[in-house]
């Protein structure tokens, strides 16, 4: 009886991986900024994951594992290499940003509620910042999951996230001034 239940629960690659399809595609498209490249990236990710599925350890985070494969595949692609050359992630030890008073980008957002503005601001973030913001705020990953996905320590996740959000706020402020 127990054996039968275990067998029924035994997870196949498809059962685990297909529910992540939309999320992975969305993330891939944000990284590549191109539909065809995003499809290639997702396809390659699934091919690699399927090949390496026997080595995936049960009980560990499958979602972080899949996102890590996708992200690593992106980084070694031509688009990924170009994107990562734009910014060297230095001074990760910078302290968290302090709060700002007055007319902040957040209040601008509240006032204008402009989707296009936020889209452009995310799109213009360097890839190291874009990915950490998307994983945290869109995929709602914990810091631990983000650390596993990006293969970096949690402290670095926090500082990178802080810098990414600051850059995003600055970008929004700039666009608001332009507009």
């Amino acid at each position, binding site marked *: 009886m127990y*054996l039968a239940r275990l067998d029924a629960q*035994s997870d196949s690659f498809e059962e685990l991986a297909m529910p992540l399809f939309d999320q992975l595609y969305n993330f891939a498209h944000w990284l590549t900024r191109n539909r065809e490249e995003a499809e290639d990236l997702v396809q390659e990710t699934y091919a690699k994951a*399927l090949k390496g599925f*026997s080595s995936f350890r049960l009980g560990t985070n499958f979602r972080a594992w899949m996102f890590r494969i996708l992200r690593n595949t992106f*980084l070694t692609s031509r688009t990924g290499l170009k994107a990562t050359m734009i910014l060297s992630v230095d001074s990760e030890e910078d302290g968290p940003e302090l*709060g700002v008073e007055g007319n902040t980008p957040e209040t601008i957002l509240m006032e204008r509620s402009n989707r296009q503005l936020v889209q452009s601001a995310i799109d213009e973030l360097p890839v190291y910042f874009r990915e950490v913001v998307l994983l945290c705020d869109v995929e709602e990953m914990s810091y631990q999951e983000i650390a596993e996905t990006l293969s970096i320590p949690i402290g670095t996740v926090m500082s990178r996230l802080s810098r990414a*959000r600051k850059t995003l706020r600055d970008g929004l402020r700039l666009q608001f001034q332009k507009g």
Partner: protein
Amino acid sequence: MVCESWKAKLDTYLDGELPSEEMRAFDVHVHNCPSCSADALTRVQMKRSIQAVGKRFTPSAAFRKRMQQRIEAKPRRSSFGFAWMMATAVIAILAAVGLTATYNEREGVHTERVYSEVADLHVTTLASSSPVDVISTDRHTVKPWFQGKIPFAFDLPELQNSEFSLLGGRMAYLDQTPGAHLIYDVRKHHISVFVFQERSLRLPTRLNENSFAPKNVAFNMETWSQGGLRYFVIGDASASDIASLAKLFKADAS
């Protein structure tokens, strides 16, 4: 100014990532501090906007169908639950010798796979139109290029008075783990040196057995673990050249 220390942690608080005691203290503070409360509200608004805008791209129906069809031949993985272990234990008692042989065979297959993957990385790189991303013969240029890209530091040996020259480096991934890939030249032969964090890789124990010779690998290869790092030196150069370059790395890392 009083709130600076609170505001510094505001994002971490809103992400729900502070320890529970600090979360409770933060709740109390935010409820009583108009400035932090307003700041928290606008940041929550920002998070929500990003979340709404971030879920922007959806795969086409055709792509979804294509992927579904590819994955349909789904390999079921064995369950490692209690029942499985019990069954294994019984089998183990009955056929200990047989299992040992199977284990050795699996280790061998795993070792072959690692060698093949390293060889593939080497060949793919050399076939690429841009084999290196940091082009430099200067180790003091190549080493800093990896900072921030890989989660560890390593040293490159001094090559003066040796036949080797450094061509450059690039990122490499093995077992989904980021590492450094360095390319050297010796008498028109290219040699790849890969450096990974040992604990991040799932390597077979047999990899450290010098007597194990991989089949179907046309390259000379040397691998070892030192200072928590796993090194692979591979190329079509002679075994003695591979050993010499490995020796330089070993001496430098010790």
